């Protein structure tokens, strides 16, 4: 079971570390990261394995959103099933 975390916002030091820390605390294993910086806008997509996650997905989402608010970033977490069902036949 995987989930996709997306982070969009102004580029600052330590975004990747902060998001990874929240994931690590929840025992969600980061499997893939793609990031790009356009001007000073930071955009990151992270795929995490949540099969051994020790939190409910909604709780992990809430923690990431709190982190987002603290750092002025827009952070989303969504179950991969959604993308698979919407974009793959």
């Amino acid at each position, binding site marked *: 079971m995987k989930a996709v975390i997306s982070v969009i916002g102004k580029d600052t030091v330590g975004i990747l570390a902060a998001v990874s820390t929240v994931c690590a605390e929840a025992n969600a294993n980061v499997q893939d990261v793609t990031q790009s910086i356009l001007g000073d806008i930071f955009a990151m997509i992270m795929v995490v394995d949540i099969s051994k996650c020790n939190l409910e*997905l*909604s709780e992990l989402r809430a923690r990431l959103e709190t982190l987002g608010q603290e750092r002025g970033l827009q952070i*989303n977490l*969504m179950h*991969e099933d*959604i*993308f698979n*069902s919407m*974009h793959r036949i």
Partner: protein
Amino acid sequence: MISTNEILETIKMIQEESLDIRTITMGISLLDCADSDIDRSCEKIYQKITTRARDLVKVGEEIEGKYGIPIINKRISVTPIAMLLGASGGDPVKYARTLQRCAETVGVNFIGGYSALVQKGFGPGDLELIESIPEALRVTDRLCSSVNIGSTKAGINMDAVRLMGQIIRQSAENTADRDCVGPSKLVVFCNAPEDNPFMAGAFHGVGEPDCVIHVGVSGPGVVRAALSKMEGGDLTDVADLIKKTAFKITRMGQLVGAEASRALGVPFGIVDLSLAPTPAVGDSVAHILEEIGLEQCGAHGTTAALAMLNDAVKKGGVMASSAVGGLSGAFIPVSEDAGMIDAARSGCLLLEKLEAMTAVCSVGLDMIAVPGDTSADILSAIIADEAAIGMVNSKTTAVRIIPAIGKKEGEELEFGGLFGSAPIMKVNYASPAKMIARGGRIPAPLQSLKN
């Protein structure tokens, strides 16, 4: 691997374009609750609904949490109550109060099925139930009622049509102190679907299993946003884009429905792939029509644009789901759609144009307010016209019309929430009284020689 663009597109759909699951509706058969004693019958109903739907709201919220998709409503539809009333007799409003109590206990916002199917005539319980509708809708706030008065195979029961005009008026009068909210929960159908998850017309048909989960998806905002990004393109391209978008929306409904069915241990019924608007800005079917290229909804060309939209939504959705049903298409409820409200206010959208639009889209004259002095005969005649469109075209049509007691054309009714606000529309006052008074039945139409 899913691409970054696909991920961002999905997030945008949910966060900015109001993509949501409009409703998870549990259909529950009450046939085994029928009893010759009405109080015992009510007790059995309460037990069955509160047992079957005990976890409905909880599971809905869990799925919302897991996928991050808003599920706006959790609802219940039940066997048409007229069938139970036929067995029990007694005061039908007892059933209404029982259903209201069930809805409060399990925490759903609407429960549908205070219904009677009388397309060919009145069976035991039908007439008593219909006559009790104004009182039932006055003493409850979560109960929804519907009456099927016609079908392609049976024709139109004009005695029922005449009665429903009176019932709608009476229901409005009974709730005049609450912006005539009564008739906003009362639908008069021709060719009513038995697996519709959308209120106010949902009921659990007799051909359905004991308990089943239906899902209604939404997403006018997503379709409009997709169209607004399109540069140029002819109508073939437009139809194609709508099809692709409807596919994605419906896939999400399918995912949620399958998950809910698994979690509740109840078979999955259908996905209703309707474009259901809300009064929120950006969630409007009228705005899709305007995006296609009309100055305002109601202009000449509206019917053609809507026909294309409705068909493309179905084509896209059918492939995305294992079972499509319900009303499936585009909804055009005037009070629940910001673009329709504007068009009705400005006088661009008239009742007659809406009637034409209902010939090519799902449902019918929906959430329309008319002046308070509109007679029961005129209401009946509006129902008859709409039912005739459904009967002849082998499609579902419905009327949910609200006579605004004490108000006149140009004023508005405020329902709030998903029901929105309804500008009172102009009505043709020429009298249909003699025709309506005739009663009887309009025979079923010929199914060949289609011209």
